[in-house]
């Protein structure tokens, strides 16, 4: 399977020019904020000045009376949805909570929570009108720290929230939304077998995905109730479905046209503005545009969850793991739904161990509702396990990669989350890391090295594709997933491969929700896997149709017609190319077109390894990354350049989370650093060139061997960086980010 998949391709695996490149570098591509309509209004949102307060009254009258103001709303315009989790393709959503997050009802739960909105003829008038809205609040005690939020005397956000998953039903409301546990074997016996036990507690800060493009949309509701949305998101079908729920209107009355997306990383997997703009458009009879400011993005859109990860691991002298016990506590923000349980399922996934347990706690705080950030929950969870494994390796004087190889899972092993692995490339990736020159570079004084492994499940889910072959032989490949990480290129490559035609003849398009079958959102590293599979299936239908048409033209049995290099072939006849068959489409059955939809099974898990070398300035505490190597089993790399881009991006985001990025709140629960000047993401000058190594262990569950690529790269950098810093200074820092202040304090304490 592996050799067959790796060696059989003609187009796949090439570094083709990106189909959307020219439009993007010349500024012609349309992002969410680039859309405008005649008669359009601008809308702005009034946001809570308090971290926790009861809304006692809202008076819109003065705002509505202002010249130029056409509509103003509160949450009263949205139906009060029933609470409870509903399946939404990727995981579950409580649409009552989602609606309350779009616009607060009786309480505001975080500073920046939307309270009201105004649509006016200009942005300036809309902003002035916000100031005329009178809101009375009863300020309540707040809590922004998950450790504090779990205390018995903490302010409770939701009086109707009782911890789910306890052995006995909870007697009182709590900020702990749920507790879940998985265990195997006998922990006590496992620790009793251990020659060494290391136990640590790690703190991970809230970090934002930091996408460049703020959330933006234009919405027009006509007099028939038809809702047209142009928006940037990770899934326009998701925008349609979620907006439908929040507005209480039929899915069929909403059409969403995808804008280009300027980054998402999981942060654009929900809606904030679209239902508000639709409600304002319905009331004003005019199209409405909304664009968040950078400050709004930081204050009111989902960052990644802060966390506390407690880890205890035991091992024998030879490095064999005997017991692993962990607690993953993640911050959901204002509404339940942190990825704690997901992270807990990832943290042991790379290793075999007979005795282990994870406990996951989902905790709410008076902060913005968190959202996914690549492999949600996995980076936080991996930080704890991987750092402790490095410490065990140090104590036992075992090479940290050898320790991992000794315990690494392979095909046939049962993953901690339950299923048995099919073909996986963890060991190959670890061996490649050990052989890499960067792993053998001598370290100078003040330098340190760290190694870590990351894991992500990868997803399948629903995808659709349509292929239209034009006269002349050009091919339109139409899918329904926003292109975040190069999916246009991968769709084109897979279509060209399946059809056997030159890549240049393929034109990939991303259609609106009315023009292609349903697609789950772009996330979970599913698009190249699942949407690509739909493209392959549609292309194979085209090939089959071409064989039948050629057989009819040649007056031969279709079974005597084969397909090779983009042409129908039959002994005794000149080949008929796709272009030639398209030219005869009218007399052979009509337009040459095919569609395919699937709910893809067989997603192959991905493993990544990070190697990091740092240099620490002992006078200032500043950490410099001097070498970073990202290695990953990607299945089959459809477009290696894009795959490397994903690996580099994940590495940089993980480095930023480890060293610099964090939400800083004041005593009133207000975010103090809602901008890129004070929220310090790494820039090019902060980083070395990221070395990437692609390992190709094809996924047996996909016709071309594809695994997901986008999530694993962010899982391992935090522990690799943290370990490198600890090695450099001889300390055991466990609270991130590793700011100069923290590093200096650690040095001072030695």
């Amino acid at each position, binding site marked *: 399977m592996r050799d067959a998949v790796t060696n059989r391709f003609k187009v796949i695996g090439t570094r083709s020019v990106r189909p959307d490149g020219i439009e993007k570098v010349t500024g012609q591509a349309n992002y969410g904020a680039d859309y405008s309509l005649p008669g359009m209004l601008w809308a702005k949102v009034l946001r809570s000045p308090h971290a926790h307060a009861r809304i006692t009254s809202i008076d819109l009258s003065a705002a509505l009376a202002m010249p130029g103001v056409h509509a103003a709303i509160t949450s009263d315009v949205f139906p009060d949805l029933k609470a409870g*989790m509903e*399946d939404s393709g*990727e*995981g*579950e959503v409580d649409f009552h909570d989602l609606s309350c997050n779009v616009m607060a009802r009786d309480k505001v739960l975080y500073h920046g929570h939307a309270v009201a909105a105004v649509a006016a003829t200009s942005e300036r008038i809309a902003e002035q009108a916000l100031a005329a809205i009178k809101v009375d609040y009863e300020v309540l005690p707040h809590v922004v720290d998950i450790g504090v939020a779990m205390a018995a005397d903490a302010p409770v956000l939701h009086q109707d929230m009782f911890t789910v*998953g306890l*052995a006995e039903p909870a007697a009182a409301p709590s900020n702990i939304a749920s507790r*879940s*546990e*998985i*265990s*195997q074997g006998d922990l006590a016996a496992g620790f009793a077998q251990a020659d060494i036990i290391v136990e640590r507690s790690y703190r991970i800060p809230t970090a934002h995905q930091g996408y460049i493009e703020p959330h933006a949309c234009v919405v027009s509701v006509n007099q028939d109730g038809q809702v047209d949305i142009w928006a940037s998101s990770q899934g326009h079908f998701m925008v349609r479905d979620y907006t439908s729920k929040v507005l209480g209107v039929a899915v069929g009355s909403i059409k969403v046209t995808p804008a280009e997306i300027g980054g*998402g*990383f*999981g*942060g654009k*997997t929900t809606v904030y503005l679209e239902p508000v703009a639709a409600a304002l458009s319905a009331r004003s009879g005019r199209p409405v545009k909304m664009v968040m400011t950078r400050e709004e993005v930081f204050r009111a859109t989902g960052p990644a969850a802060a966390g506390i990860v407690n880890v205890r691991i035991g091992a024998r002298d030879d490095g064999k793991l005997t017991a692993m016990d962990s607690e993953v506590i993640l911050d959901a923000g204002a509404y339940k*739904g942190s*990825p704690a*349980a*997901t992270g807990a*399922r990832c943290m042991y996934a790379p290793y075999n161990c007979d005795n282990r*347990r994870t*406990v996951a706690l989902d905790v709410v705080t008076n902060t913005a509702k968190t*959202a*996914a*950030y*690549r*492999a*949600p929950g996995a980076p936080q969870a991996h930080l704890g396990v991987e750092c402790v494994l490095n410490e065990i390796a140090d104590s036992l004087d075992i090479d940290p990669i050898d320790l991992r190889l000794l315990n690494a899972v392979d095909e046939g092993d049962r993953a901690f*989350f*339950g*299923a*048995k*692995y*099919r073909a996986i490339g963890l060991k190959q990736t670890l061996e490649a890391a050990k052989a890499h020159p960067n792993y053998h570079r001598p370290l100078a004084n003040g330098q340190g090295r760290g190694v870590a492994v990351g894991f*992500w*499940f990868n*997803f*399948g*889910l*629903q995808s659709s594709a349509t292929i239209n072959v034009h006269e002349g032989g050009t091919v339109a490949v139409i899918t329904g997933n926003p292109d975040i990480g190069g999916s246009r290129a991968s769709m084109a490559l897979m279509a060209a491969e399946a059809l056997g035609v030159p890549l240049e003849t393929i034109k990939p398009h991303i259609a609106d929700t009315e023009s292609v079958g349903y697609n789950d959102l772009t*996330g*979970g*590293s*599913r698009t190249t896997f699942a949407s690509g599979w739909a493209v392959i299936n549609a292309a194979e239908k085209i090939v089959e149709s071409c064989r039948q048409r050629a057989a009819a033209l040649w007056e031969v049995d279709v079974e005597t017609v084969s397909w090779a290099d983009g042409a129908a072939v039959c002994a005794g006849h000149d080949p008929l190319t796709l272009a030639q068959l398209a030219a005869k489409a009218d007399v052979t059955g009509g337009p040459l077109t095919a569609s395919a939809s699937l*709910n*893809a*099974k*067989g*997603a192959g898990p991905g493993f990544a390894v990070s190697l990091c070398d740092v240099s620490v300035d002992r006078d200032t505490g500043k950490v410099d990354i001097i070498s970073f190597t990202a290695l990953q089993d990607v299945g089959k790399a459809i477009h290696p350049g894009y795959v490397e881009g994903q690996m580099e991006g994940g590495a940089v985001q993980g480095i930023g989370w480890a060293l610099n990025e964090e939400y800083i709140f004041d005593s009133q629960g207000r975010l103090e650093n809602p901008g890129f000047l004070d929220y310090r993401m790494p820039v090019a000058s902060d980083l070395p060139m990221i070395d990437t190594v692609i390992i190709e262990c094809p996924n047996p*569950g996909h016709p071309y061997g594809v695994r997901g690529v986008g*999530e694993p790269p962010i899982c391992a950098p935090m522990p690799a960086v943290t370990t490198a810093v600890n090695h450099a200074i001889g300390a055991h820092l466990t609270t991130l980010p590793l700011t100069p202040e923290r590093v200096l304090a650690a040095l001072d304490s030695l």
Partner: protein
Amino acid sequence: MPTVVLTGDLRRYTGLGEQGQIEEVQVQALNYRAVRRELQAMFPLLEDAVLDKYGVAIDGVMVQTPLLETLEPDSELVFIAKIAAG
């Protein structure tokens, strides 16, 4: 007979062993619907609303449409809590 692996919090509904432990049970069923029926006969608390919250892996493959799958006598079916992604 196919094997069903019950992970994590499903144990709350089965009463098997300690909470959170992974447990395996044998079922006489060759499709997913029959698996559910048999599980629910064994463990009445495993209602549809509970099982619907779990994804399914059959013989190591995550399956989105288990109702369309058939099982072999040596198949292994694992219930895995649904996960969200970015």
